């Protein structure tokens, strides 16, 4: 079956969608179709990809307006009665065609305080952790850094507040460190001031697009928001903190 694709092609004026037709067969994913178009009609079409298994996070794009991994979007999941549109991620500057510059994410990540373990539990320099304690942060470690959550987040996408709001990916990264049973670093003040957690208005779009099904909003962002509320917005809690030690 021939399917029409409208793929973003950049040019000196910015760019536009360009129509391509290609044959779709059973089992194909969108990335296969893009590669086929590249081979048949547009040798200079730029597309970033690597593993084709949903684990490298390279082939992020917007398929019919929805941020998705091209390698994990089967053609039978996409309506083909109308042209299938493929845009680059809107939240980041375009390098060429479907390739965007996501380096802002690496700069933001560098600002987050690193893992700082407590003193070793045993004389041989090792630690003891309960599996149930580490289970909580294990979910966050599934992140493949595809940045689809950053792309769909309206704070970054519509308002370009990359410098003020770290975004969902970095909230997940911070949560993985902050909730780690060995970690003793304090990132609460940074969450409020540097990472701008207050900009998140919990619309859960990040959770919706995550290909690893990380419950970003409920398990990472909201618990971090609550920790910020403990420290900065809850007078009762501040009073009780005078009598309790940090766990």
């Amino acid at each position, binding site marked *: 079956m021939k399917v029409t694709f409208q793929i973003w092609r950049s040019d000196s004026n910015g760019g536009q969608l360009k129509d391509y037709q290609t044959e779709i067969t059973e089992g194909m994913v969108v990335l296969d179709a893009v590669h086929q178009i590249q081979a048949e009609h547009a040798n200079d079409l730029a597309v970033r990809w690597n593993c084709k298994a949903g684990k490298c996070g390279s082939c992020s794009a917007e398929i*019919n*307006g*929805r941020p998705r991994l091209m390698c994990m979007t089967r053609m039978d999941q996409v309506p083909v009665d109308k042209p299938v549109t493929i845009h680059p991620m809107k939240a980041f500057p375009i390098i060429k065609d479907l390739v965007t510059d996501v380096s802002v994410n690496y700069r933001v990540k560098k600002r987050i305080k690193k893992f700082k373990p407590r003193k070793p539990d045993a004389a041989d320099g090792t630690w003891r952790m309960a599996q149930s304690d580490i289970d909580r942060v294990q979910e966050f470690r599934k992140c493949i850094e595809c940045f689809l959550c950053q792309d769909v987040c309206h704070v970054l996408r*519509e308002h370009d507040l990359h410098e003020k709001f770290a975004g969902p990916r970095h909230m997940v990264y911070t949560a993985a460190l902050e909730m780690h*049973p060995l970690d003793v670093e304090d990132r609460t003040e940074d969450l409020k001031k540097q990472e701008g957690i207050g900009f998140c208005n919990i619309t859960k779009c990040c959770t919706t697009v995550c290909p690893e099904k990380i419950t970003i909003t*409920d398990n990472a962002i909201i618990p971090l928001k*609550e920790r910020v509320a403990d420290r900065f917005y809850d007078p009762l809690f501040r009073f009780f903190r005078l009598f309790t030690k940090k766990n």
Partner: protein
Amino acid sequence: MINSGFGNTARKDLWWGRPLVVFLGLGSFIVYATWAAFQGQHYFLGNYLSPFYSPEIFGGSPHSWFGDKPLWWPLVLPFSPALLILWAPGGMRFTCYYYRGAYYKSFWADPPACGVGEPRKTYWGENSFPLILQNVHRYFLYLAILFVFLLAYDAWKAMWFTDAATGKEIFGLGIGTFVLAINATLLGCYTFSCHSFRHLIGGIKDRLSQAPVRKKLYDCASCLNRKHMNFAWFSLFWVMFSDVYVRLCSMGIWTDWRIF
């Protein structure tokens, strides 16, 4: 990388459907609850008390704690027992993490839906006044927990009917008993599935294995939390239906069938 304009999107699905349903659902509830709160009558029937009026701190029904309308109530303001208490559960829902995300989309188009352009170019989020006040949520949670117990007591009272012959209270079950019991259960599930509750009960700690009781409670709260949105909607609908039920029975339009 800039604001793309209201409604601008490449999405081809019915992205406006969900926000519209939320707008209609929440909007209908707000209109009905406001109307019902100002009525000040037909809010009880014998041992049944509408949850919109519970607890009845001051009021004209036998359920009132401290008697009739207080003398200090300004004459220019209409009086209804519901006006004294509805701010608390209303505040709980208004500041609830789930509802916030839902009404920011449906009522404020911030954004209208995921990946859809917004009407405004500026954005402050919950980082500054007024939305920074949403952090008061946990205080409304404390009040909501109190309300859960009060509504559970109402459900208990709804099992005790006055015998017309002897004037004594006897145990019984009416349809209204089930209505109020389901109401208390759903509100309990909504309250104890709250993100703030989950945090305070255990999420605040990184090594919960050292506190087995809190670990169990945290696991229970986490389990409920996964269905928080469902509980939010079911409890919202049912609390409204409970008021409708008591109101229509009190007006004689519906009959409360007694099972025994």
